[in-house]
C-alpha cells in the first residue's frame, strides 16, 4: 500500500485520482485517504475494546455449566406432579392420568390459539414436561398441587392475569399468546430424564 501511495499519490481513492490532478491536489487526496484509514482503524479498535465488556455480561462458564437438570421419575405416581429447577426456572413434570391424556388428545387443533397436537408436546404421553412460566408476563401458573385452581380446562391457571392452560399446557383462555414451552429433554432411561 505504501508503494502504491508513493508512486501514485491518491490512486487508491478511485476514479477522480485518475485525472492526474496537480501535486497540491494529490496531497489533499492522500490526506483524505489517511483520515479514512485512521478512522477505520479507530472504529475497529474501539469495537475490539468494547466487545470484551459486552461479552462479560453474557452467561459465564459456571452459569452455563448448570444448564442441565436430571429428574428421577420413579417416585412420581400417576396424577402427581413435581416442580424442578432448570436454569433458575421452574419446570413442571406431570405424570398424567389416562383422562388427562384423552382430554388433551381430543381437542380439535383448529380451536387452539397456538395450534399444537398433544403428540407434538410430549415424548411419552404419560409424562408432560414443560417450563412453568406463563407466556404472558412470566408468572408461575398454579395447578401443580391437587388443591390449586386448575382453570377451566383442568390444567393450569395463572393468577396474575388469568390465563387458562389445558392438560397439555396449551393456552385456552386469557391474555397469554403461546402454549407453555416444552424444554429440550431426553429419556436417559425409562424412569429418568435429562432437561437441557
Amino acid at each position, binding site marked *: 500500500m505504501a508503494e502504491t501511495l508513493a508512486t501514485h499519490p491518491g490512486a487508491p481513492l478511485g476514479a477522480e485520482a485518475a485525472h492526474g490532478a496537480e501535486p497540491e491536489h494529490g496531497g489533499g487526496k492522500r490526506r483524505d485517504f489517511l483520515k479514512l484509514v485512521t478512522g477505520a482503524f479507530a472504529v475497529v479498535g474501539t469495537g475490539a475494546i468494547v466487545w*470484551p*465488556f459486552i*461479552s*462479560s*455480561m*453474557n452467561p*459465564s*462458564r*459456571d*452459569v452455563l455449566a448448570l444448564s442441565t437438570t436430571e429428574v428421577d421419575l420413579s417416585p412420581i405416581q400417576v396424577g402427581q406432579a413435581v416442580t424442578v429447577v432448570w436454569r433458575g426456572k421452574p419446570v413442571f413434570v406431570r405424570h398424567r392420568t389416562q383422562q388427562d391424556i384423552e382430554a388433551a388428545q381430543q381437542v380439535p387443533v383448529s380451536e387452539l390459539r397456538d395450534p399444537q397436537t398433544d403428540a407434538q408436546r410430549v415424548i411419552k404421553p404419560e409424562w408432560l414436561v414443560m417450563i412453568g412460566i406463563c407466556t404472558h408476563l412470566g408468572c408461575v401458573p398454579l395447578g401443580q398441587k391437587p388443591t390449586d385452581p386448575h382453570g377451566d380446562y383442568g390444567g393450569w391457571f395463572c393468577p396474575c392475569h388469568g390465563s387458562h392452560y389445558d392438560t397439555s399446557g396449551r393456552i385456552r383462555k386469557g391474555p397469554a399468546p403461546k402454549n407453555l414451552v416444552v424444554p429440550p429433554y431426553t429419556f436417559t432411561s425409562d424412569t429418568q430424564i435429562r432437561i437441557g
Partner: protein
Amino acid sequence: MASGLHQSDFKNPVVRWIDARLPVFTMMEKEYGTFPTPRNFNYLWNFGALAMVTLLIMIATGIFLAMNYTPHVNHAFDSVERIMRDVNYGWLLRYVHANGASMFFIVVYVHIWRGLYYGSYKAPRELLWMLGVVIFLLMMATAFMGYVLPWGQMSFWGATVITNLFSAIPLVGDSIVTWLWGGFSVDNPTLNRFFSLHYLLPFVIVGVVFLHVAALHITGSNNPLGIDPKGPQDTVPFHPYYTVKDSVGLVAYFVVFAVLVFFFPNLLGHPDNYIPANPLVTPPHIVPEWYFLPYYAILRAVPNKLGGVVLMFSSILILFVLPWLDTSPVRSMRFRPIARIALLLWTVAFFVLMWCGSQPPEGIAVVLARIGTAYYFAYFLVILPLLGWFERPLPLPESIARPVLRGGGPLPAGATSKPMEKA
C-alpha cells in the same frame, strides 16, 4: 434569535439548536479546539492526557468487575477467581484493572516529575498544583482500598498494617482504628466499606480532575522553557497540534500497557495475594504495591511509631506548600544549573527509597532509607528555599518562538510580538 439564547457560531442546525441553549459545543471548541497552547511542548506534556485516559479505563473496567465481585469475606476471594476462570473476558478486565493501577501511578509520577522539573507548581499555577496533589492523595486511597478487595493474604495484611498507622495518633488512635474497621479487627465490615469507598472515590477524582483542568485553562499550560507566551506567535491551537501529539503518545502508551497485560500480567503483583486471607497467619515478608514503596521506606526509616507515620504523611503533604518553598522566580530547571542537579538527586533518592521499601528492614536498606529520607525532605525544606538566593540562573530566552525557530540575526526589541511568517 430569541433573547436569553447563546449566540452560536455553528452551522449544523441540530448542533446550533443545542449550542444556543447549552453551549457545550462552544465550550469544547474554545477549550480543546482553538485553545492557545505553547508551541514548544515535549512528550512529557502527554502525561496529563494519558492520566485522564487511564482514569476512564479504570472506571470502565471497574464497573464491569463490580458486576461479578462479591464484597463478603467468605466470597470475595472466590468471586475474583470466578472472574478469572468463568466470566467471559473476566481475566482481561481484571488484568487491565490491576495493571491499570500500576500504569496510572507510572503516568502520574511522570506527570508530577514533569511539574517539578519545569516548575509548573509556581505562580500563577499554585492552586492547579494543589488540586493535583489532592487527586494524587485520592488515587492512593483508592488504590489501597482496591488492593484489599481480592481478600488475599496481602490484601488482608496490607489493610491491617495501613489502618494501624492511625493507631499512632495520641489518645484517640485506637478509637479511630476501631472506627475505620467497624470492629476489632479487619473483617467483613471493613471489606464492605472499602468496596463502597473504592467505587465512590474514582468519581470524586473525576470531579477534582475537572477542577484541575478548569484551573489549567485559566492560567494556560506551562512549557519546557517555563516562560509565558508573549503572543500568538508563541502558541498553536490545541487541535490539531496537541490532539495529534497526545494521540501519538497514547498509541505508544497502549503498546506498553498491552505488553504488561498480555505478557506479564502478574509482574507487578505479589504471589501471596493468591492465597486467601488468613487472619491468624501473617506472611513472612509483607510489602505494599510498588507505587507505595518509597513512602513505606520513609515510614520504616524512623525508629519511632508516631514519628514514622508523621514523616510518611508529610512526604506527600509537603507538596502542598512546595509553591512557597521554592523561592526562585525561574520555572524551568533547564535554566537552573544547581537546582537541576538537586532535583535529579531527589529523583535518585526516590528510587533508592523505592528499593529500600521492597527490602526487609535491616542492614544497608535501613541506612539507605535514612539517607534517602533525609535528602527527600532536605530538597524541599533546605535546598529549594536557599537556591532561590544563591543560584545564578542561565539567561532566559526572549520568547518561546525564538529558540524554536533557530537561525536569523538578533531580533530588534519588540519583534517577538509580531506574527511569524510561517504561523
